[in-house]
């Protein structure tokens, strides 16, 4: 009798190969497998490793061809990295990988004061602003207001050094809901509104005349506020 339980080794191998050929999953299924492995993998995966992880008889290289076609023109691409493969978001959609966060901050006290002086005294030079505030004005503060488009450069002053002046913009009026810079309340109104803690000085200086002390040479800025 022949020993049927132990076939010759060659036959066994052949049989296994044959079986695995029959057992290999359909190509569509292999594509799914490659897709899942590449999706979950932290690194690009070599074809050999794909084959090792997939059921016997699978042909990762062929599945990759199909998968590459499937992802053409999509939001995700199948790309080759050296001798390995990876899924990556389409390069043209890189702009989606950012999130815009808008943060609103209160303007600094220095900036508010500088802005107020420009609004009440425009056109006004930096030296004049410093004189009114009693402290120097940093370049950053002015830049910030320029960038916010709340102030802009006015005409140069016809005085030694021809310093630039600053004026407020339409954007400024818009933001603060003012028809014109003339609509800014005067000192008297500020006081009536309780914005001034101190008692009125004997003379109750109107804004316009206070201006004169600051800048005797300046012409034109005060008439805006004269009633």
């Amino acid at each position, binding site marked *: 009798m022949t020993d049927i339980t132990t076939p010759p080794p060659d036959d066994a191998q052949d049989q296994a190969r044959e079986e695995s050929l029959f057992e290999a999953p359909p190509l569509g299924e292999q594509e799914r497998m490659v897709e*899942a492995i590449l*999706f*979950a*993998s*932290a*690194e690009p995966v070599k074809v050999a490793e794909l084959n090792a992880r997939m059921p016997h008889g699978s042909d990762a290289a062929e599945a990759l061809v199909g998968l590459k076609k499937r992802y053409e023109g999509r939001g995700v691409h199948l790309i080759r990295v050296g001798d390995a493969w*990876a899924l990556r*978001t389409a390069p043209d959609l890189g702009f989606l*990988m*950012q*999130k*815009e*966060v*808008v*943060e*609103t*901050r*209160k*303007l600094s*006290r220095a*900036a*508010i*004061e500088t*802005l*107020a*002086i420009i*609004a*009440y005294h425009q056109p006004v030079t930096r030296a004049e602003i410093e004189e*009114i*505030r*009693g402290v120097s004005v940093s370049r950053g503060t002015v830049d*910030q207001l320029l960038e*916010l488009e709340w102030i802009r450069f006015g005409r140069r002053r016809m005085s030694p050094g021809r310093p630039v002046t600053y004026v407020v913009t339409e954007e400024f009026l818009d933001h*603060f*809901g*003012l028809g014109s810079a003339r609509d*800014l*309340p005067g*000192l008297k109104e*500020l*006081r009536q*509104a309780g*914005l*001034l*803690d*101190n*008692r009125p*000085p004997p003379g109750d*200086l109107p*804004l316009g005349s*206070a201006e004169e002390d600051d800048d005797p040479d300046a012409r034109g800025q005060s008439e805006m506020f004269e009633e």
Partner: protein
Amino acid sequence: MAEPETDIETDTVTSIDARRAAEALIVDVDGFEGPLDLLLTLSRTQKVDLRAISILDLAEQYLKFVDQAKKLRLELAADYLVMAAWLAFLKSRLLLPPEPGEEGPSGEELAAHLAFQLERLQAMREQAAKLMARDQKGRDFFVRGVPEDVARIRTVTYTATLLDLMQGYARIRTKDEFRPYVMDRDRILTLEQALDRMRPLIGFAGEWTDLTSYLPDGWGGDPALRRSATAATFAASLELTKEGRIELRQAETYAPIQIRRKETTDD
């Protein structure tokens, strides 16, 4: 965990198998999560749907279990004994007709609720098992292996209100001009200042406190300052008394003046 395959008959625990099952339960007493868990395990020996279970039989099974544990000198946690006492009570309620005028729920109501608790616990156990049998992330399905960072682009916008602007301007325009005027009053404590100072403090003056302890720091030394501060503080205390917020007393002429908070809850 013991899964008793054999019935423990309520009247006859004679067969060796049954005794073994009962002992297995007892030996495993630490494996139970409380008396309800034990009851649920015992109930399985009835081999019926939980809805059709005999609570009376179950009570007897439980009491027998506790008896045996005692015989084996196993120490049972207190809640097992509390349950035993309660089941004994339930048993008597179920077996004896209710006495006329007896208060509280009937034996049937109590038994029904216990059955509900058992059924609910059983249901939760089954759901827990089903939940854990589901496909799980990181075990059956997987997330993207190389997630990409989302860059956060911060845009800062600055705002200010018209009020800010006006206050800012008022601050500049007024800071020099009026200062001397205020400085004249440097060495005088006004009634308003004293009131401002006392108002937040009196809330804490539950006991009689000497009025002089309310003088601001640094006003007690120089006689001129002290005089002004004492006068203002006294005037302020009169004002607060008038408002009904404090009480004021003086034991005799020239004795220290004392104040304390008036309890508003009294009126």
